[in-house]
């Protein structure tokens, strides 16, 4: 990892470490080292640097709520907002624990897209009617209840690697060295 003009640049080894951690964040430094043919101290240092720089933002647990027996309903809300108020609306939505993801989008109108979880349809409706619709700047709301989940992943480092110019550079260097 290099720093230049305030920008952090990852090299191919950092990216491989991130790919491995995305698969299993509980692997020991020595296990990651074995897979990459590097010393565990090298892995340790690189991971610590990526943590310090915020590239590794968090280690977390992915809980399968269905297996836990908690039948939660999930819905996607599209909130049409007054452009002047949209930031405030998004901030207010962020305070509601039932809303787990919030995005803004600009199509014909300014939209906020939010993922929400609730116990059942009635509590979903109560949340939207009592806590979302009354927010100043909310023009109207469309809600779709999720019926089946086909895929839910984080973007894989490997899948987006070719889109990043600095990685291409690193790969070309590696190819030049015959590695």
């Amino acid at each position, binding site marked *: 990892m290099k720093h230049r003009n305030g920008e952090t640049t990852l090299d191919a080894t950092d990216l491989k470490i991130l790919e491995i951690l995305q698969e299993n964040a509980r692997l020991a430094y020595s296990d990651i080292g074995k897979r990459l043919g590097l010393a565990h101290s090298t892995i340790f240092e690189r991971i610590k640097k990526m943590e310090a720089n915020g590239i590794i933002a968090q280690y977390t647990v992915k809980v399968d709520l269905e297996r836990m027996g908690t039948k939660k309903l999930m819905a996607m809300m599209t909130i049409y907002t007054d452009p002047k108020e949209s930031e405030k609306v998004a901030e207010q939505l962020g305070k509601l624990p039932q809303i787990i993801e919030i995005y803004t989008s600009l199509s014909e109108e300014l939209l906020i897209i939010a993922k929400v979880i609730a116990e059942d349809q009635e509590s979903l409706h109560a949340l939207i009617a009592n806590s979302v619709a009354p927010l100043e700047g909310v023009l109207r709301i469309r809600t779709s*209840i999720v019926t089946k989940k086909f895929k839910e992943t984080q973007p894989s480092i490997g899948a987006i690697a070719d889109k990043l110019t600095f990685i291409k550079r690193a790969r070309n260097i590696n190819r030049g060295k015959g590695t």
Partner: protein
Amino acid sequence: MNPNIAPDIFAVLPREKAFYFFTSIGNYTGVNASSLNEFAEKIREVNVKSLEFHLNRGDFEKWLTEVLQDTEIAEEIRKLKRLNLAGDDLRNHLCETVSRRLEHSKSPL
């Protein structure tokens, strides 16, 4: 003052106590009412699906009783529900009921 009139019938409510018209679970039309007067106006123009949705759920009665504290009109609307009305028939009956209540409230003893 007419003693039958609930104290909050002409009150203009804060945003969090207004009535928000939905057409189905989570689908807000963008129409809301902060007083009984405004409610009377909005039920004339809102999508009729919204009227059917809220009448079947008992939301009108709940808001009129709990927020506007007007049990009299709430009872009138409960009676409407039993008629199983839909579409413009429902809208017309609902408008008539609310207008009647407003007129009655304004008239002296």
